């Protein structure tokens, strides 16, 4: 089932997939190098990772046409691990990440994505774009004006070249940017930083290697927190990207298979000396935009990337960092959801708070998992608050029978239970109290407790209390946890206070 794919997945769109795969491969090279630099490892670690992940996902992924490789979101989580413990521990953490993701896939945790609301996704995407942009800043500080000029020229080429009639839409403009800036730097002999200065580039195909770490509990203690965060962030970004690709292509995907696939790809990457990765929003959009739809596009992207880097590594080393920075700024601009800024005026405050809180937490902690956690938490609280507004109580007095009826409407749960109690007038002297619950729903212990308190208090004031119209679910929970009709329990509820 993990390898199942139809002929159409692979061969349904050969021309489009091959062309898009080539475009993506070219765009992946600068990204993989840039993200390796963010993580603090040699560019070859990111390039190997991008190759392995893209190729493995082509076979085992659940979303054909989605591009996965070494990503910024993941690279940011590894910085401390690499700094304090070195590359081997990163490789071990990558393996563990894959393992955790596979387990999560089998536990079908992909469906938990439904808790991640639209505004959290927007916040995630925006935070990611900001982080990618911020990671470029070290390349732009304490440098000569040449670097600024080249970066600006690079951006100009990237965004203006597509308007050149004829060739503009057939040659990837990031490639044109990299090529022309590299040629310019070599010809003028400018003394600026190049990719070669950033560390080792791959000169061979990746080879199988087992991370050289002691297999002890101590190692596990070091890598587990990183692996867990990597696993969560990797799946979050992958599933979000899968949804975006689903929307763009109007085709469904298998989210749980994608979780397992990401796990397998990360294990493969770890064993071949690469870092952990996940799906990439920007690259996947580029792929779809270039006409890529099938698994073939991902396979081509990964394999062409490696072939180019291995055979052209002398040339890749000469690419000026300014060109990479320009490409990465493009990626961050393309990833950012600009619509969301305009929507700030239109959307309700709670939605905006969730979105902005997600962004702020991520930018502050450099950990997308924390941001999503805070976003989901806030969104749930806001939701609970909104639902509790829909709880109200109508009341009616029958003078003849000396009976008051309370009609409860809406959802009674922890958040609305206090409000529920406030609606009752315990000081009124009446003979009979009827509480009509036919339009109410009791959700939890707090709600049942509030009901108990209401009934008991009325009884203490000397009134007869009757509950009517419990719906089935409410009746079950009131029967199980309520005490007002169990005399032996009443002591405990009231006596304690």
């Amino acid at each position, binding site marked *: 089932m993990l390898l199942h794919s139809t002929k159409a997945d692979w061969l349904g769109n050969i021309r489009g997939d091959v062309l898009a795969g080539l475009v993506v491969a070219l765009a992946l090279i600068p990204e993989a190098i840039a993200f390796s630099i963010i993580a603090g490892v040699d560019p070859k670690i990111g390039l190997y990772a991008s190759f392995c992940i893209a190729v493995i996902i082509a076979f085992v992924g659940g979303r054909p046409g989605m591009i996965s490789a070494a990503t910024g979101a993941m690279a940011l989580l590894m910085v401390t691990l690499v700094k304090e413990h070195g590359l081997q521990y990163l490789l071990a953490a990558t393996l563990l990440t894959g393992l955790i993701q596979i387990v999560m896939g089998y536990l079908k945790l992909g469906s938990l994505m439904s808790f991640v609301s639209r505004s959290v996704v927007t916040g995630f995407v925006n935070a990611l774009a900001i982080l990618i942009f911020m990671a470029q800043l070290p390349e732009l500080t304490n440098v000569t004006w040449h670097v600024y000029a080249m970066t600006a020229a690079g951006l100009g080429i990237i965004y203006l070249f597509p308007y050149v009639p004829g060739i503009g839409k057939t040659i*990837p403009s990031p490639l044109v940017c990299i090529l022309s800036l590299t040629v310019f730097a070599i010809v003028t002999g400018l003394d600026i930083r190049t990719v070669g200065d950033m560390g080792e580039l791959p000169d061979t195909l990746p080879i199988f290697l087992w991370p050289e770490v002691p297999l002890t509990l101590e190692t596990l203690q070091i890598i587990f927190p990183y692996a867990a965060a990597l696993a969560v962030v990797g799946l979050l970004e992958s599933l979000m990207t899968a949804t975006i690709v689903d929307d763009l292509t*109007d085709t469904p995907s298998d989210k749980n298979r994608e979780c397992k696939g990401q796990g397998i790809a990360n294990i493969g990457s770890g064993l071949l000396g690469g870092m952990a990765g996940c799906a990439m929003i*920007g690259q996947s959009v580029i792929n779809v935009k270039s006409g890529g739809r099938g698994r073939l596009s991902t396979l081509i992207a990964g394999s062409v990337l490696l072939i180019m880097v291995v055979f052209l590594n002398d040339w890749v080393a000469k690419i000026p960092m300014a060109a990479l920075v320009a490409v990465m700024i*493009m990626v961050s601009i393309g990833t950012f959801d600009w619509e969301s800024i305009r929507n700030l005026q239109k959307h309700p405050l709670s939605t905006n708070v969730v979105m902005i809180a997600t962004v702020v937490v991520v930018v502050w902690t450099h950990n997308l998992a924390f941001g999503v956690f805070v976003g989901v938490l806030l969104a749930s609280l806001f939701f609970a608050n909104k639902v509790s507004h829909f709880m109200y109580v109508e009341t009616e007095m029958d003078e003849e029978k000396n009976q008051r009826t309370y009609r409860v409407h809406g959802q009674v749960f922890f958040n609305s239970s206090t409000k529920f109690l406030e609606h009752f007038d315990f000081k009124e002297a009446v003979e009979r109290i009827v509480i009509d619950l036919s339009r109410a729903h009791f959700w939890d212990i707090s709600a049942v407790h509030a009901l108990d308190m209401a009934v008991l208090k009325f009884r203490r004031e000397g009134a007869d209390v009757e509950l009517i119209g419990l719906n089935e679910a409410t009746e079950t929970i009131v029967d199980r946890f309520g005490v007002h009709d169990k005399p032996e329990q009443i002591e405990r509820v009231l006596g304690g206070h």
Partner: protein
Amino acid sequence: MNDQNVVSCIDGSAFTEAVCDYSAWMAKGTNAPLKFLHTVEQSSTPAVADLSGAIGLGASEDLLNELSEVEQNRSRLLVKKGNLMLQAAKQKAEDAGVHTVELRQQKGGLAESLIEMEEQIRVLVVGIRGTAHDSGRAGLGAQLETVIRSLHKPILVVNKEFSKPEKIMLAYDGSKGSRKALEIVASNPLFKSTPCHLVHVGDQTNVADKLLEEAADVLRAAEIETTTARLNGKAENSLAAYQAEQNIDLTLMGAFSHTRVRDFILGSFTAKMLQKTQRPLLLLR
């Protein structure tokens, strides 16, 4: 049995007309209602392809809008075209004297749609190739294999202009599938007055003759004019040759249910037969 239809799949390819005729013949012969099916499938070739590789402000939203607009127009056109096609097919079938003709247009892949309505299918009529391969080249259609694999109903594969079947051939090897096919021929009103050639391919004379004799008895008991023949050589080649030589209009065979793995290595016999044969093939199971 009465709520089961002869389902006919049309897509506007070169075989559409022949498919209409064959299904009308089938529906009249079996006295079953006829249902024309046309599926509107989103083409897997993307409508927009921009290789610039640059993503700017709101790249994802812009792309989504652009794609949905193009695909909306494309789908509308396809639906309209399909509707016209279905109406034409209905007219044709009614002219041919079929009493109940139903039309159905569905979104999605052909195989998926057929699997969904499998319960209502009595016989399925499809062309050997669809529009995707309409350039006149030989070969099997992109969908045919999946359809044959996923359905468990008789399938008539049409590969030429309609001519009323005057002479049919049953490929018989004594297997469970072919015995089932034999029963169908013997009992179906469609083949009541059509002479049948009972053909076996194999080297072992005694076994073959005995098999053929037994089978021929079944057909003769059903008052069907029967000729038997024993052939040598590669099954698909000799069957195709016999077909041409005896001027057979329709070949019937039980579909062979090998495993996918075996088919992958050896090539499925059904697929080989489909490629070789010049006449319509009715796969029974």
